[in-house]
C-alpha cells in the first residue's frame, strides 16, 4: 500500500514536469538549409535581399546583434550616422580610414566581418580588454563559415539599410559557382609593406604596434634585441612554443603560417627586428 502511494506520488510529480515542458512555446531548431542561389541572375536589390536572409538566418547575426545589448543592434540603429561616426572616431585606424562615402562603408563592413577586432565599438569589447578585442568571431571561418559571395550579400544588405549606394556586385558565371561552394578565400596579392601585413592580420589589436597601445600581448618594441630572427619567426608561426612571462598560452592565433606569404613574413620580420625600444614605461 505504501509502495503504491509512493509510486503514485512520484508519477504525479513527473506528470507535472512533463506537462510544464509541453505547454511552453515549442521551437524546433533545424540545421541551416543549403540554399541554392543562381548567383548570375542577381541584381543589387536581389543581392541585398539575399543578404538580409543570411543576416537573419544562417549567418546567425541576430543571435548577438539585437536589442539585448551584447552587440550593436544593426536592425534598429541609424546605420548611416552610426558608420560615419565610427569611421570618424579618432580610435579608428582601419581599412576605411582615408576613404569616404560608399567605399568607406564597404571597406568598414568587410573589415568588421573578417577582422572584428580591428575596431571595436565603445563598450562592446571583451571584458578587461578596454574595447580592443571583439567577442565576435570572424564570419568566414567556422562556426559561421560564410563564403565570399555571402559576405558580399551581407555588405549589400547593410549598405542598403545605411542608405548608401550598393558597391558590391553579385559574382558572375564560374566565379559564382566557386564562391557558392567554398569558404571565401581572399584573392588579393601579397602585401607590399610590413604595416599592410600588420593591418591585415590585426596584430595591433593585441600588441602595441603603430601606436595602438594594446596590451593584450607582450610589448614588441626592441624585440630585435631580445630575440634573434629565428625566435621571432617561431613566435609568429607557433605562438605557444614560448610564452612571455605574465602572459597566457592559447590566446594568439595559431594559424598565421597559413595566412602569411613567405614574402610577407620576411617583411614582418625585417620590421620587427628593427623596431626600436621605447623609453622605459613608467
Amino acid at each position, binding site marked *: 500500500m505504501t509502495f503504491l502511494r*509512493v509510486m503514485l506520488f*512520484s508519477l504525479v510529480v*513527473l506528470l507535472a514536469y512533463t506537462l*510544464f515542458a509541453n505547454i511552453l512555446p515549442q521551437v524546433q531548431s533545424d540545421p541551416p538549409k543549403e540554399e541554392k542561389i543562381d548567383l548570375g541572375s542577381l541584381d543589387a536589390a536581389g543581392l541585398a535581399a539575399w543578404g538580409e536572409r543570411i543576416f537573419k538566418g544562417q549567418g546567425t547575426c541576430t543571435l548577438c546583434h539585437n536589442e539585448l545589448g551584447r552587440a550593436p543592434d544593426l536592425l534598429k540603429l541609424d546605420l548611416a550616422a552610426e558608420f560615419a561616426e565610427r569611421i570618424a572616431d579618432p580610435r579608428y585606424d582601419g581599412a576605411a580610414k582615408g576613404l569616404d562615402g560608399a567605399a568607406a562603408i564597404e571597406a568598414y563592413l568587410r573589415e568588421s566581418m573578417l577582422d572584428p577586432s580591428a575596431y571595436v565599438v565603445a563598450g562592446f569589447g571583451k571584458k578587461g580588454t578596454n574595447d580592443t578585442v571583439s567577442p565576435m*568571431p570572424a564570419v568566414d571561418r567556422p562556426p559561421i563559415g560564410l563564403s565570399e559571395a555571402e559576405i558580399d550579400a551581407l555588405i549589400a544588405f547593410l549598405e542598403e539599410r545605411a542608405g548608401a549606394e550598393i558597391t558590391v556586385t553579385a559574382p558572375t558565371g564560374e566565379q559564382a559557382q566557386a564562391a557558392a561552394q567554398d569558404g571565401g578565400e581572399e584573392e588579393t596579392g601579397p602585401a607590399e609593406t610590413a604595416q599592410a601585413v600588420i593591418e591585415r592580420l590585426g596584430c595591433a589589436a593585441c600588441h602595441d604596434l603603430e601606436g595602438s597601445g594594446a596590451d593584450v600581448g607582450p610589448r614588441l618594441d626592441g624585440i630585435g634585441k631580445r630575440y634573434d630572427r629565428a625566435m621571432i619567426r617561431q613566435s609568429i608561426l607557433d605562438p605557444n612554443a614560448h610564452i612571455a612571462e605574465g602572459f597566457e598560452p592559447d590566446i594568439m592565433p595559431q594559424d598565421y603560417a597559413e595566412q602569411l606569404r613567405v614574402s610577407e613574413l620576411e617583411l614582418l620580420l625585417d620590421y620587427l627586428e628593427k623596431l626600436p625600444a621605447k623609453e622605459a614605461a613608467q
Partner: protein
Amino acid sequence: MNPAGSMRRAWTVVFLVLAATAAALAAPDALAQAADALAQPAPTPTRADYPVIGGLHGRPVVWGFAQMHLFLAAFVLAVPLFVVVIELAGAVTHDARYDVMAHEFMKISMAAYSFTALTGGGLALALFLFYPVVMDYLLKVFRGQALIYAVLFVLESVFLYLYYYSWNALRHGQRKWFHLSLGLVLNTVGLTLMFVANAWTTFMMSPAGVDPATGAITGTVWAATRNPLWNPLNLHRFLANIAYGGAIVGAYAAYRFLSVRSIKERAHYDWMGYTANLIAVAGFLPLPFAGYWLMAEIYAYSQQMGITAMGGVLAWLFIIQALLIGTILLAANYYLWCGLGRTDRGARYAPYVKYIAVVIVGGFLVWVTPHTLILSPEEIRILGGTSHKVLGPLGIMPAKNTAVNLMLVFTFMSFQLFYRSGRVPTVSWAGVGNMVIVALYAVGIVNIVAAGIYGYITPTVYKVGASVPQVVTTLTIIVVSLTIDSFMARGARKVEVHWGRMSTRSQYALFVLPVAFTWLMALMGYIRSSVRTHWHVYTIMKDASADAYIPTIGSAGNMITLVTLAFMAVIVFVFWLSQLGATVQEAPAGGEDRS
C-alpha cells in the same frame, strides 16, 4: 598467519595494480595509429551513412541508452564516494552506527552495477551501429584511451567487489584502514572512468588537438582530453553525482521508514534519511557555482554556443531548470524543518521557519521568471515589447544570481538551525559567537542584495562581474558558520534527539528529491547535447543525419519522462533485490522439510 606480513603483501598488490594503471594511463599515445591515418581530415558523412535498423533511427535509441547509463553510472560512482567518508567517520569516532549505515548504503547499490554495465554495453553497441562514421573519427582522436577505458572497467569491478565483500573480514584495527584504502582506490578508478568519458563528451563540444579547419588530428590524446570544457564538466559532474547519490539512497531510507514497525528500526531509517538528505544538500550547495563555471567556459570558448544555450533556442530550458531546482530546494528545506521536531529545543526555532520559507519561495519565483520570450508579432504588440515591462527585469542575470545565492544561504540556515537544536553550547564565548554569526548573515544578505542591485544600474560587463562577490559571500557565510559552530560544539550538552519522530508527509519530501534530480539531470543532458546544434563535433564534423535538428522541449520532456520512469523501475528492482537478499524463509512448522 603473520598479520604484519599479510598486510605488507596486500599493500604490495595494491601498489602494483596502481602502478600498472598509472603506466597505462600515461601511455595512450604509445598505442597510436600510423601518422598518415591521423593526418586525414575529419569525415563528412552523408545521409546514407546513418543506418536505420528495424525502423529505428539512431537518435532516440542512443539517447535512451545514454541517459539510462548516465543515471546508473552517476549512482554507482557516487555511493562509494560518500560511503568511504561515512566509514571513515565511523573509524575515527569509534561509533559502530556509521559503519553499519555505510555498509547498508553499499549493499543497496550493488545490484545497480550490473545494470550500469548492461546499459553501457547497449550504449556502445547503439553508437557503433547507428553512428559508425562518428565513432570511427572519435576512436582515431582518442586512440589508445578506449583500451584504457576498458581496463579501468575491469579495475572498477575488481575493487568494487573487493571493497564490498571484504567489509566484515576487514572490520577492525589495521585491517579497517586497509579496507578504507580499498575504498579510496575504488573511488580513484571510478572518478578516472568519469573523467575519460567526460573527455569524449566535451571534445565533441569544444574540440582541441585537431586542426580547426579540417579536423585532422594534430595533437596528442592528452591535448584532445584537456579541451576547454573538460575540467568544468568534471567538477560539475563530480558534485552533482554526490548530490544525486544522496537523494536516491534517501528515497530508500524514506521508504523503509514508512514500511518498518519497530521503533528502533524507524529511528535507524530516520537517521539514514537525514544523512542522505545532508549528503544531497551538501553536494548541491556548491553546484550552481560549478554550473556557472561550466557556462562561463562555454561562453569563453564560443560566444555563439553560449548564447544558443541561454539566450537563444534553449533559453526556456533554464526556466524548467529553475522549476526543478526550486522543487529540490523546497523539498530539502521542508525535510529539515520537519526535522526540527525531533528535539524539544528545535521547537524554539519553529517560528523562524516561515521567514525562510518566504525567501525560498520568493527566490524560486524570481528565478523562474523568464526575460526573453519567443513571441508572435501580435503578442509583442499586446505585451508592448519582447519582455514584460515589470517582470522582465526579474529575468536577467542580476536578479537570478541574487535569488539563487539567497536561496542557498537560507537553505544552509535551515541546516544550521537543525544542527544547533541538538546541542546546547557550554563554552564561555557562546554569546559572542552567536552575535558574530547573526551579524555575518545580516551583512552577507545585504551584500548579496547590494551586488545584485549594482548589477542592475551598471552596464552588462558589471552584471556578470557582480555575481562573483555574491558567490564569495555565500561561501563565506557557510564556511565561517560551520567553523564557529564546530568550535562551539566542543563540550556542548547534547540534547536528546528523538530519531524516528517524523511525520509521514516529511518522508515524501525525500521521494521528491530523486525524482526531480533525475529529471533535472536528463534535462541538462538534453541541453549539453543540443548546444552542439547540427554538429557531431562542433565546427569540425557536421551532423548529416535526418535527426540533425534540436527537438522541441515538449518532445524532449516526453523522452525524459520515459527514461526517468525506466530508471525508477530499475532502482525499485535494485532496492527490492537487496531486501530479498536479506530475507530467509523459515522452515515449515510440521517438522522436517520434505520439499
